[in-house]
């Protein structure tokens, strides 16, 4: 029986909005390379938790929004996030039974793929990174996964989002 809280949609939307704000929040220069991929993290969480509700179309809309916010080439993040959502959709049944750190490892791979696609598109534009530092967000995202998982799970249960 579906027992859905009254704010189900709003909670998902609000979490994406917060992720977008965190994604453009100004940071000191030495931290800039390590900014976790907040949007990808939140997206992965919702895909694993509610694959029937959040999927590739959400990822597409989210990606286009992020592209405009970042001033990236239209489609860069959309492409990357759709790929991430697709992989998460294929893996969600396995991911749910993984331990937290196993999930972190998968998140590392997924955000790494996200970064690789973004890098690839930026190279098309001629503005790619010179070093491998662009993979650093994959590491920080994986390390932050437990925090994201627990806080979003808490929120989801509190507002009975399903």
């Amino acid at each position, binding site marked *: 029986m579906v027992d859905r809280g009254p704010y189900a949609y709003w909670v998902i939307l609000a979490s994406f*909005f917060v992720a*977008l*704000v965190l*994604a*453009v*929040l*100004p*940071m000191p*220069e030495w931290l*800039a*390379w390590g*900014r976790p991929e907040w949007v990808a993290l939140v997206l992965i969480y919702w895909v694993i938790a509610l694959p029937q509700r959040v999927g590739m179309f959400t990822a*597409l809309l989210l990606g*286009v*929004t992020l592209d*405009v*916010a*970042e*001033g*990236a*080439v*239209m*489609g*860069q993040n*959309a*492409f990357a996030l*759709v790929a991430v959502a697709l992989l998460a959709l294929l893996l969600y049944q396995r991911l749910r039974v993984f331990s937290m750190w196993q999930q972190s490892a998968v998140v590392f791979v997924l955000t790494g793929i996200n970064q690789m696609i973004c890098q690839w*598109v*930026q190279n*098309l*534009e*001629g*503005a*790619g*990174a*010179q070093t491998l*530092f*662009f993979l650093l967000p994959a590491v920080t995202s994986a390390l932050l996964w437990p925090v994201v998982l627990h806080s979003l799970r808490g929120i989801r249960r509190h507002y009975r989002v399903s």
Partner: protein
Amino acid sequence: MLALLLADLRFNSLRYARSVMEVAVAPIFWVADIPSRLADWNEEHLVSRSNLLEQNERLRRENLVLQGRSHQMASLQAENVRLRALLNSSALLRDDVLVAELIGVSPDPVRHQLVLNKGEGDAVFVGQPLIDADGLLGQIVEVSPITSRALLITDATHSIPVQVNRNGVRAIAEGTGSLTLLEIRHVSATTDIREGDLLVTSGLGGRFPVGYPVAVVNEIVRDPGEAFARITATPSAALERSRHVLLVFTTKPDVGN
């Protein structure tokens, strides 16, 4: 998806859609800007009286000095216009500026862009030069009704025509993707350019007005094995610190000729 990429990257056909969506993402920047606005508010409202008095005194002195200089400027400018009219060349007039405030910076470290709180409604246009108190910052690349996006001179995709202030040698300064470094390309090893030279905009290309400081030459490596000297320069403007920036409206001089 690939069509979307291609449309934006190669054909620039999504400009209108982008400017509409830019309005939609404005709330994101508004929220992300709250911490720095709070810091500003703190600075403005939680200041001791003595500090304010001191600041007031300092500003008054600075104002006096600047006013004195601007009187001198006026006569020099008039003289300049007269001389240029004699030479039958176009005159340099004073540029009008609009103060804009930074509401966001590009989160991507390789992409040097700023989001400003002035847009189409304030007559901001694509290609408009952007300066701060110390020099040239960049140019506007995207305009939405209420915000605009500027590309900094240090972005890896940006180049700007410059000249050495001392002797007028022309060159192109390219961004490197590092906020503190510009590269001057294709300057032959025998060109008269020294460390410490000020590079100013040359006005060639017609996009930037003449004479705004761009960078100071930082290092010159003349390797006999290479065709060109390797020259790096440090941008004059406070690229990572400016919060208030100036949008330049160049008034086209109409000297009959």
